[in-house]
């Protein structure tokens, strides 16, 4: 086995505006994201040799080959719940590293708003459907169980714990408000977050990410070929997927206060990338913050913050733009939005642009970042399929 580190480069990326895009369908989103990526890489559609598309709701490679009119090339649709985006990147990266293809396209796309339902269709919770077991469970309901247990374990009174979550949401909204492509672009205050309608206690309206349409795309090649396209490419330093045996709701030894799959994937990525001290070496983190509690526990499980110490970090602003380790500079799933298949690519887009010094809206630009960590997880506490990815300057 060899590490993937620095074998694969990203030489172009695109990302649509994310939001409730009533006048666009999935094909429009694919075209828009892919066009920006082609233009960014300085290539044409015909240069692409193979493609991977990540989507929960769309099936088969036709998702990309039809709107772009790809001419009889290999296209694979992949899915791993909310880790779908990284599955597309990962599989494309392996194909390129194996030298089977030289230039490939990755697209993540989701069109969620045609259903007519508020919230996510329940079927996307990644539990095997059953007539009665787990009936009526929702994503916020399941994640809120981790919040209750986290507060209990670390001695946080309900109001105290909810205030921590509110601070995360405020921080992410502040970043998203300054990101022209984000879904929710409104600044909020801690009081607004504390008093917002409850979705699943302690998660209020502002502690839950938007249900969003969007797409993002990337052009991948082997690192040795990257300079033909641009000088400011980035490379994949490490990427790993972890699918757990999903027994947290069955075994009495799962504590509901950490994400086991994320911890394992993160350790694998740090080993691949040679990262010894994540908190110091990583310049920005894009993590899976479908709910504020998801971010809180993710940062601990990614090894960026010590277990049980999120409160210290949050109250000292460590995860803000000015803090020691900015988390979700893009606005996160929280305010950028979460079109499921697109989020992985979209997180990488943020890191890619930040490293290039091209963050959307200058006030969001970090100073000279070199290494970013990205994270997505599908499923729910006790049963996750997650992905962690490190992207950095060559």
């Amino acid at each position, binding site marked *: 086995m060899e590490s993937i580190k620095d074998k694969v480069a990203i030489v172009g990326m695109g990302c649509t505006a994310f939001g409730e895009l009533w006048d666009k369908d999935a094909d429009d989103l694919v075209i828009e994201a892919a066009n920006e990526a082609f233009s960014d890489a300085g290539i044409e559609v015909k240069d692409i040799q193979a493609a991977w598309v990540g989507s929960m709701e769309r099936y088969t490679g036709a998702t990309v080959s039809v709107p772009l009119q790809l001419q009889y090339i290999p296209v694979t649709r992949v899915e791993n719940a909310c880790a779908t985006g990284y599955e597309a990147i990962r599989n494309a990266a392996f194909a390129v590293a194996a030298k089977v293809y030289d230039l490939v396209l990755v697209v993540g796309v989701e069109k969620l708003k045609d259903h007519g339902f508020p919230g996510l269709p329940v079927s996307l919770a990644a539990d095997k459907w059953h007539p009665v077991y787990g*009936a*009526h469970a929702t994503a916020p309901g*399941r994640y809120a169980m981790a919040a209750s247990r986290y507060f209990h374990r670390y001695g946080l009174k309900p109001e105290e714990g909810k205030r921590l979550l509110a601070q995360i949401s405020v921080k992410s909204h502040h970043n998203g408000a300054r990101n022209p492509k984000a879904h929710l672009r409104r600044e909020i205050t801690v009081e607004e977050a504390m008093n917002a309608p409850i979705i*699943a206690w302690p998660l209020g309206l502002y502690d839950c990410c938007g249900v969003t349409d969007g797409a993002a795309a990337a052009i991948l090649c082997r690192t040795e070929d990257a300079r033909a396209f641009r000088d400011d490419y980035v490379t994949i330093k490490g990427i790993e997927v972890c699918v757990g045996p999903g*027994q947290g709701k069955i075994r009495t030894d799962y504590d509901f206060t950490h994400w086991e799959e994320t911890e394992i994937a993160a350790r694998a990525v740090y080993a691949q990338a040679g990262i010894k001290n994540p908190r110091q070496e990583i310049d920005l983190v894009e993590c899976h913050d479908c709910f504020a509690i998801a971010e809180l526990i993710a940062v601990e499980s990614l090894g960026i913050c010590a277990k049980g110490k999120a409160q210290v970090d949050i109250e000292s602003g460590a995860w803000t733009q000015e803090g020691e380790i900015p988390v979700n500079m893009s606005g996160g799933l929280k305010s950028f939005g979460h079109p499921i298949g697109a989020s992985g690519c979209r997180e990488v887009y943020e890191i890619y642009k930040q490293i290039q010094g091209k963050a959307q809206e200058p006030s969001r630009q970090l100073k000279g970042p070199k290494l970013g960590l990205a994270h997505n997880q599908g499923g729910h506490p006790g049963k996750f399929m997650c992905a962690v990815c490190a992207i950095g300057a060559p």
Partner: protein
Amino acid sequence: MEAGIVSFGAYIPMQRMQRKLIGDMWGNQGGAGEKAVANWDEDSLTMAVEAGIDCLGGRERDAAGVLFASTTAPYREKQSASIIRKVLDLAPACLTLDSAGSLRGGTAALTAALDMAQASPGKTYMVSAADLRKPAPASALELGFGDGAAALLVGTEDVIATVNAHRSRSSEFIDLWRRDKDLYTQMWEDRYVVSEGYEKMMGENIVRFLEELHAVPGDYARAAISAPGPGPLRVVCRKTGFSFGSQVSAGLFESVGHTGAALPLMMLVEALESAAPGERLLLAAYGDGVDLFDLTVTERIARLPRKRGVAGHLASRLPLESYGRYLRFRSLMEWEFDRRPPDRSSLAVIARESSQIYSLHGAMCRRCGTVQYPVQRVCTECRTQDDFDEVRLADRKGILFTFSMDERAMVPDLPNVLCIVDLEGGGRFYSVLTDRTPSAIRIGMPVELTFRKIHEGSNLYNYFWKARPVRV
């Protein structure tokens, strides 16, 4: 050996609605006291299960028959007793029978069960009667009716109350009825049906029964006599010589309401749970005729394990504070279309997993002893494949490990409380907490399991287990 009562149990739903609240809703006086209202996730079948569990307690699950009595069975076509049998984890050879459509259905089933037990000495038969009543809103019956259940185990061994004699009189007289196409129970003029029906028939039959037995009212410590309400009961006491208030209790009307087919059995349980050895009891039920039973309590009642019965369930209550919630529980109106993916079911899955779904069997790995629910073919701990015993988890209590309160779930009563319960004896149950006050839920609180109706996907009643804070 004479067949008699071997054990008993009862069930009263937690929610209680004040009659004054009903009066406030309709702009009249309402009434005194309160009535028991089944939760939105309960029905006659689930309540019969609860009473059955109270009755069977820690006994071996070896009853030879389950007789379910109700005027409000969930299915018009499809037996309820067969499901109750599976939920109570009784053998498939068990006789299952529904006694439908009569206020006297529970005592009719009791008559049959006594004869069955007599014919098969050593075997036991359980009668469980339950009703979730259907009065029209703003009617007098709405004030009087309540929801509840009671169960009696009948056999020839270890009898706690012998049945010395019983008689049945059938009558074609109609007073209350509900046709297959009616939503609500209807009644003829109440003065007529009470005086010409109940008071006459019950009075005459009790008097004749006592004459045949050469007994007088004073011979009985208590009499469980069903009635449309306390007023007519008082009249029958006057006609027959029983003492209203001391021998005959009307307490259930005040605190629970008329529980239909369950009422006579609940009254008997009320009498039995405070009866002393040697006491003689009368049981009288009315509806499509009269059933009468003469019983004597034996010494063995002192050795019967403690039951929640009527008294235990009465004491454990949650106020139903608005009529609007009652409307939601009973779904008495047409609602706005719920813009969400509909619930759905699969009979194939339910059949394949019926021991797990109905009897709540989990797996205990034979190699490492780990308890897991649902059954895992590959043990979660030692990863041995296909080497486990099924274990019934339904009787186990547990501790609430964590929970959430979902205000957007697709259920009639919000919040939906998702929960993780760690069970005594091992294993973890992922479920929903019912019969709860949201502000009182605490991690670490003791909970128990309860059989409930989950949803109506695919036009079926889909049942499963939930958790609730320990009631008693």
